[in-house]
């Protein structure tokens, strides 16, 4: 199917979907880690059994806010990600709600056995915050650019995994994760990214949110890629292509119904994540579709390579993680419709 053909066929749906949803606009930029930090403070204010553990980078992952406000409920663990996860488990098995945050590379990899056996198999109410997600970390380079957490966390039974899309959602998601029972992982980023959701934008663990309607194709995205998807979708609208944008903030438990609905109503899917293209959100979506509603999917993500140093924007472009890439993927996906 040529691009022209795409345009024509997509015209059919334009009227029915246009203008039904509020258009998201960027209102400033702020890293999602600040939402995590603020959300944790809200939890600290609400519940006196919320505690936090530090991994020597409290000022980077913003547990510093909690530490300042609730010094009696903050405990430094030094640089011991594996054991900090265990200490958190001990706190959880004592009825507390411990948050331990560090860079995602270490929050998901240095302690994987601890997440599996002590946290998940125990069904312990531990909350892990993984910061510095994705290659938008920038100059620190590959070792610090966590691109594997979605695969590692979602394969673990009992785990809940949330990847908020902007500052506001990160704050809401952190609070929700704190109030939810069970072992949870929340993923957030270092660099400033567009803020576009509002205090009243709905967020619920386990529910995808439709951020833009459309039936020509659907982009299922998480984290800051949701904004890139929206930009792509708005631009494509001008070309007469109506793209649905789903914010899949919860990777586990996955909103399977929303994915199947998107595939059956749109017939073509694009997934977008700041993560390896392997076994991540794209993989999760592909699994659901293979089981319930086969459909063409184009994957946006890092193509099975490590990151590297550079400016965040430079890297996002080099690794193909911009709205431009989403746009091209949407066209490829539509061209694959039958």
């Amino acid at each position: 199917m040529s691009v022209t053909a795409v345009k024509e066929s997509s015209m059919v749906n334009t009227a029915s979907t246009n203008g039904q949803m509020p258009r998201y606009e960027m209102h400033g930029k702020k890293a999602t880690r600040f939402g995590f930090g603020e959300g944790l403070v809200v939890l600290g204010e609400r519940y006196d059994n919320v505690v936090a553990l530090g991994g020597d980078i409290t000022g980077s992952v913003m547990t510093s806010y909690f530490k300042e406000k609730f010094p009696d409920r903050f405990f430094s663990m030094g640089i011991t990600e594996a054991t900090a996860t265990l200490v958190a488990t001990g706190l959880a098995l004592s009825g507390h709600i411990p948050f331990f945050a560090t860079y995602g590379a270490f929050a998901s990899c240095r302690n994987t056995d601890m997440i599996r056996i002590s946290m998940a198999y125990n069904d312990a109410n531990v909350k892990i915050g993984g910061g510095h997600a994705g290659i938008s970390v920038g100059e620190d380079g590959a070792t610090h650019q966590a691109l594997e957490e979605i695969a590692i966390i979602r394969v673990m039974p009992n785990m809940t995994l949330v990847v908020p899309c902007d500052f506001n959602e990160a704050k809401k998601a952190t609070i929700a994760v704190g109030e939810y029972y069970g072992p949870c992982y929340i993923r957030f980023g270092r660099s400033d990214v567009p803020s576009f959701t509002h205090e009243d934008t709905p967020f619920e663990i386990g529910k995808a949110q439709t951020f833009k309607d459309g039936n020509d194709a659907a982009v299922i995205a998480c984290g800051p890629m949701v904004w890139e998807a929206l930009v792509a979708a708005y631009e494509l609208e001008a070309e007469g292509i109506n793209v649905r944008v789903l914010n899949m903030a919860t990777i586990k438990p996955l909103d399977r119904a929303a994915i199947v609905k998107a595939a059956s109503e749109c017939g073509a899917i694009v997934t977008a994540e700041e993560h390896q293209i392997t076994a991540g959100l794209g993989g999760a979506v592909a699994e659901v579709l293979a089981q319930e509603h086969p459909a063409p999917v184009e994957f946006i993500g890092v193509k099975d390579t490590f990151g590297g140093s550079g400016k965040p924007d430079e890297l996002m472009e080099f690794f193909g993680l911009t709205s431009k890439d989403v746009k091209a993927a949407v066209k490829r996906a539509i061209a694959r419709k039958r």
Partner: protein
Amino acid sequence: MARLTHKTYPLATGFHGSSRPTPSPELMAKYGYADFKPFSNSADHSDAALLEIAQSIRRDIIRELVEAKSGHSGGPLGSADIFATLYFGGFMRYDVNNPWWEGRDRFVLSAGHMCPVLYATLANAGFFPKSELLTLRKFNSRLQGHPGRDMGLPGIESSTGSLGQGLGIAVGMALADKLVDKNDRRVFSLTGDGEISEGEIWEAAMIAAHWELDNLCMIVDRNNCQIDGRTEDVMKLNPVGDKFKAFNFHVIECNGNSIAELRHAFAEAREVKGRPTCIVAETYMGRGVSFMEDDYRWHGKPPTPEQAEVALTELV
């Protein structure tokens, strides 16, 4: 301000939809489990009384294992005196009728593979009927091959089985008690000696000392054996006591097969202020069974029915 709580004990989910295994009446009769009366937990027990309990635990370990046809004999037998002293000598507060009682002291078995001794101890204390010991390692048993909290067995505070993790969990519990809830509960944790080659043991030790968790008492079962051989051949651990001293623990070295020495050790640990305690308990793997004693090849093997019979006659 509120406390956000979710009911978490007991989980007892197990294998959904499957029933628990039950031992046959014949088997129960064979081992005389039907009319067993649990032992009490009291500082008044004589050393001889505690030794008797230790031997009862040892006999139950043999029965568990011979019925399971797989599992770990050596470490459990070697550490039975530690468990008898800790659980029945008045050093740990617990209520078998209310196993999740908020005021209880807690025990985390860091060396999860040694669970047969913990299960036997709990059964001898009356946490659950002894008959259940005969379901060890069977499909949907609450007595998993390595402790599984999902099974909801009373007295099991945490799943363990991956070496080096339980101590960190115990540190978290001790931290919760001393620094968050500010109560006087105590936390105990036992590690194997081979286990302390795991780096998380040293991370946990550093954290416990940093936070001055004097409500934490860890015990190293120093039997000089691990799976592949003698510990000093597999990975040199000595000087164990010096290591924990350098990590700012109060260290007590004692004969871990002597009830009298263990009593002193636990009593001393209770008085220590400002730092956690590590009891380096020198034991013999397979203690009490002549053909198993001090032989690392018994780390992870059950006795045959014939061997079990001999063992049971030795363990009186």
